[in-house]
Structures are given as structure tokens and as C-alpha cells.
């Protein structure tokens, strides 16, 4: 009897000690509508990698009794119908109160429904200026109207005066082209040719021939994904030496261009993988450990977004609210719009849906982006 009592007491102690592990955390579902296939799949993959690291870290302890669960859907590199279908699936089946989105057209296409259903949407990848001032949408990527001038001003200061542009028939490239043309003309420059192309096209030889005939000082390529690589390759193949600038550089671009991408200029926010910030260091180390490469700013943005969601869930739960309500999460942003940033310091949300980050002008040297100029 005594032995049985000891055994029971032991079992009870074990149960008490193991209690927290047995108690099932509630699931906090959130969606990620990314480019998992198509010409921009590289972006989707790196963004997903960033998210997964954040989720694994967060779920070690949980957040106020919640464990994060991410549902990833594919918008096929910028298509709106798959994005809308993914949104419907996420809100009706998984009941996600928040969604991480990418690419401008898919993001814009889900926003009417997101506003209506009060689903919080974060974009860390798309750069169209059209993404500003949309309720329930917050952009942690610098938008085109903020990054294009940095590149063009640099080239203007170098003495270049005529520009040819080429861009994909997608929301972001079209609106960035408008911004770039206006800015270049405002500087006093001349735009000698503007060509729009099909997204995902691979043969730009004819377009490059037109550029060659117009003899521009510089070429602005506002396309995204591998399209940029194909444009660069076609232009250089014709022996055109004019500098090419853009807003995008995907990590797999050099597979298309080979050495032709040397000297390509692009401005984007600056994620410093050599930062001394302990959080940045730990993220970079973990990313390298898992994937054998350093993270880019897309991975960093989406990693950071999952942590912003974590903070919001914490804030709502602390107030006794329901984190599964997108409206409650949105309201929690404005309790304090400053969040700890993986870039070091803090990221502050603005009421117009944008945020501020340092912008850097990069150029490709030996197949890798190197800093040419820090803007702000």
C-alpha cells in the first residue's frame, strides 16, 4: 500500500511537472500568399524560409497560450485569381485573421475582401506605390516611389541624360515606370523609349534591338523575378553598354544572366547581414545553418513580419481580447506603432500603410550585390 502511494505521488508529481507540455496550446493560424511557382518563385521560397525560422523560434515557448501555424498558398508569381482563391480558402477554411502577402497585383486583388472581412494584411515584398493608403494593409517593404529616385538621382549625377525603360505588364512595374519617367523628366532627362512586356517572357531580343536603335544613356528595367535577368542578358548580347538599373535582384538572377549582370544597379532596403545587433546575428546564423546561404532582405522582412504578428497577438491577449480577430490585431498596431526590427532598432508603422527603412544602392560585382551608396 505504501509502495502504491509512493508510486501515485510520483506519478502526480510527474503530471504536475509535465503539465504545461500536456496542456494543448491554441492554434493561431495565419496565411502567406506567396510566389511559390513561376518566374518569381525564388521570392516565395526565401520569404517562406524567413517565416519558418520565426515560427519555429516563437513556437518553442508559444505566445500567451497560442502556437503559430502558417498556411502557405501560391499566387503563381503575380496572378490575381490564384491569390483571391487562396484568400477565400484561408479565411473560410483556416479562419486566418492575418495574411502575409507579396507582389503588388495579388496584394491589391485581395484587399477589398480583406477590408470587408477585417483581415489584416502585411506586405514585405511588393513595391507598387499603389499599395499606399489602403485600410488593413501595411507595407514593410519600401515602395517604388521611395526607392526609384535613389537610383535615378545617382545616374543623373553621373551625367547620364537619356533613358529607355522596359517593364513587365504587372501592377508594380507599371506604376514604378510611371514614377521613374516622371522623376527622370523632372530632373531634365529625356525618355527615349518605353516598352512593356509579358510577365514571365524569356525572349527580349526584339525589345533589346529597339533599345539599341534608340541609343539611351541608361536603361531602366522595372520588371521583377527572372524577367530582369532575361532583359539584361538580351541587352548585353547586343553589345549595348549603357548602365541598366532596376528595383529588383532575385538571388537566382545570375543563373540566367551569367556574367552579363555585372554592373547592374538596383536600390532596395538594406539588410546588413554583418550587423552587430544580437537579434540580426542570431537570425543570420540560423538562416545560414539551415540553408547554407545568408538571408536576403526578403527573408528578413517576412521573418520580421511573423514577429510583428507575435507582438500583436501578445498585445491583444494581454488586454483579454481575441487574437483571432483581424480588427483586434489592427487596433493593437496603434497601441504602439513601433516594433523591434530585425534590421536593428525599431520599425515604425505609418498611418498611410508604409514604414521607413534605410535604402541602399547596390551594384553587381563578380555575381554578387555590393553596396555602391547608402542613401538614408
Amino acid at each position, binding site marked *: 500500500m505504501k509502495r502504491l502511494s509512493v508510486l501515485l505521488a510520483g506519478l502526480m508529481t510527474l503530471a504536475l511537472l509535465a503539465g504545461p507540455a500536456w496542456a494543448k496550446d491554441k492554434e493561431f493560424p495565419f496565411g502567406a500568399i506567396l510566389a*511559390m*511557382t*513561376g*518566374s518569381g*518563385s*525564388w521570392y*516565395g*521560397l526565401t520569404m517562406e524560409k524567413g517565416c519558418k525560422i520565426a515560427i519555429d523560434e516563437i513556437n518553442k515557448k508559444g505566445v500567451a497560450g497560442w502556437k503559430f501555424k502558417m498556411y502557405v498558398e501560391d499566387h503563381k508569381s503575380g496572378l490575381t485569381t490564384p491569390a483571391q482563391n487562396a484568400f477565400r480558402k484561408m479565411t473560410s477554411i483556416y479562419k486566418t485573421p492575418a495574411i502575409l502577402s507579396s507582389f503588388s497585383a495579388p496584394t491589391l486583388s485581395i484587399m477589398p475582401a480583406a477590408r470587408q472581412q477585417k483581415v489584416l494584411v502585411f506586405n514585405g515584398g511588393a513595391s507598387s506605390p499603389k499599395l499606399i493608403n489602403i485600410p488593413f494593409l501595411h507595407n514593410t517593404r519600401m515602395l517604388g516611389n521611395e526607392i526609384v529616385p535613389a537610383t535615378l538621382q545617382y545616374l543623373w549625377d553621373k551625367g547620364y541624360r537619356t533613358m529607355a525603360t*522596359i517593364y513587365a*505588364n504587372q501592377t508594380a512595374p507599371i506604376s514604378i515606370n510611371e514614377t521613374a519617367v516622371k522623376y527622370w523628366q523632372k530632373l531634365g532627362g529625356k525618355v527615349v523609349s*518605353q*516598352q*512593356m*512586356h*509579358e510577365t514571365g517572357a*524569356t*525572349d527580349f*531580343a*526584339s*525589345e533589346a*534591338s*529597339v533599345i*539599341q*536603335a534608340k541609343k539611351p544613356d541608361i536603361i531602366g528595367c522595372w520588371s521583377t523575378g*527572372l524577367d530582369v535577368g*532575361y532583359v539584361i542578358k538580351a541587352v548585353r*548580347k*547586343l*553589345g549595348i553598354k549603357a548602365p541598366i538599373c532596376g528595383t529588383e535582384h532575385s538571388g*537566382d538572377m545570375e*543563373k*540566367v544572366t*551569367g556574367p552579363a549582370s555585372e554592373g547592374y544597379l538596383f536600390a532596395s532596403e538594406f539588410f546588413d547581414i554583418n550587423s552587430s545587433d544580437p537579434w540580426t546575428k542570431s537570425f543570420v546564423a540560423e538562416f545560414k545553418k539551415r540553408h547554407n546561404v545568408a538571408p536576403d532582405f526578403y527573408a528578413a522582412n517576412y521573418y520580421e513580419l511573423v514577429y510583428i504578428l507575435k507582438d500583436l497577438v501578445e498585445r491583444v491577449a494581454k488586454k483579454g481580447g481575441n487574437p483571432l480577430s483581424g480588427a483586434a490585431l489592427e487596433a493593437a498596431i496603434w497601441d504602439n506603432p513601433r516594433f523591434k526590427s530585425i534590421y536593428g532598432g525599431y520599425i515604425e508603422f505609418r498611418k498611410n500603410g508604409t514604414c521607413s527603412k534605410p535604402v541602399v544602392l547596390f551594384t553587381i560585382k563578380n555575381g554578387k550585390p555590393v553596396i555602391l551608396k547608402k542613401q538614408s
Partner: protein
Amino acid sequence: MQLDLVAQLLARGLITGSVYAMLGVSWGIIYNTTRTFHFAHGLVYGMAAYLAVSMAALGAGLFLSLLAALAGSVLMGVLMEQWAYRPMRRKNASQLSIFLTAMGIMVAGQSLIHLFYGPDSRPLKLMHEKVLTLGSMTFTSIDLVAVFTSWAAMILLALFLTRSKAGTMIRAVASNPEKATFIGINTHRIFLLAFALGSFLMGLAAFVSTLEMPATPYVGIQALLMSFITVFLGGVGSLVGAVLGGLALGLLESMVLLVLPAQFKLVVTFAVLFLVIIVRPQGILGEKTS
């Protein structure tokens, strides 16, 4: 209008058109002979590209990679005819059913490539690309290889079809399958041969294109579109029509930039296709069917 630009666009149109012509002939020989809307032909292109890339990754050189791509293409085309289309024809399946089956094979195959290789683009770096200039025209050594390969393959096919017994039988089956059966031609074997030849050309097109543009899981769909658009433009039933259709399509895509911005390229291309089909439903060189 600048003459330099005209010359450059003309050269580009001829280069692209030559590859389109080969794609058209590859689909045309299968369609003309078997009347199968072989939508899965695009999968042959994709598989050939990935086979070449895989072989190169294993250390194989240009010749071995090409051989693997061609052998894989032929095998795939023949297996699709043997295991998918033929059983359906024997059960008197409608053209629509066969088309849907082919589409299913195409979609499933592409997804398998995606699952197996991932979405990353995979270049085939087996040939150094050198920029060449002829007057005001600029092109690369790989462009030249593509043009030479396309025309050589098409000429050899033409010789095979006109000078060999098997070629004559293919033409006989394409012209009148019932009569061909009646005079003792084994249509099943001829169908297999047509699939083998068409797939061989598709594999060749995939290989030369991948030398310049990396392979991606969905690369075959564009090649497939061009292959049958070319046939319908040039004329169903005529391989010369397919060649003409391919050249016309390539030149049109390129020369349109002389007068219109690049964004109108596809609009004009398809508008012309639409007009041709309205005015001559049988295509440029196709024969009217009763």
C-alpha cells in the same frame, strides 16, 4: 525608320522563326499523321530540357547530354502514344477525351518536374556564348547553332519523308489512313514512328533553347503553344506550311516593334492568326477538307 533596326529585327525574326518552324514541324508531323491533338508535346520539351540539365550536372558533356535529351524525348513520345492515346482510340474515345487526357498528362508531368526539381531555373552551360556581328546585325553563336540545327533537322526529315519507304508510309497514312490500312500499312507502327520523329524534333528544340535560356518546370507550355499555332497558321496537313507558319510568326513578333510598342507584340501576333483563320480556315498552305 532606321535601317539598322530593320536589319536587326529581321535577323531576330529569322532566328526565332527557325526554332518556331522546327516546333511546328514537330507537332505537325504527329497531328497530320495521327490526328491526335498532342497537348502533352510540351511535356516532352520540358523533360528533354531537364534531362539535358541533369546529365550536364552529372558531368556529361554536350554530346551525351544531347543524346539523353533526344532518347528521353523519343521514349516519352512513343510511350504516350502506346499507353495513352492508342488504348483510347481503340475504345473509340472522342477527340475531346483524347485532348483532355493529353492535357492531364501535361499538367501532371509539369507538376512532377516541379516537385522533383523545385521551382528554380536550371541553366545548361555546355556551350560558350560568343557575340557575333554581321553588318548592323548582332547575334550569338548559340543563335547560329539554333538556326543551323533547326534547318538541318527539318531538311533531314523532309528527305526521310520523301526518299524512304517508312517516310512514304507516313505520308500515306497522313493522307488517307483507311486506304493505307487497306494496302497493308501497319498504322499503329506508323503512328509510333510519327510520335518518335515529332518528339525527337521537340527534344532537339528543347536542347538548343536550353543552351540559351535556363529550364524551368513550366517551360514546355510556351513551346507547345508556338508549335500548334504555327501549324494552324501555316496550314494543317502541310509540313511546309508549318515551316512557313513558324517563320511568319517569328518575323511578325519581331518586326511589329518597328511600328508598335512591345506591349502590342502578342496582340498583333494573335490578331494576325485570327485573321488568317477567318479568311483561310485551313491556314496558309492547308488544303480545304470536305
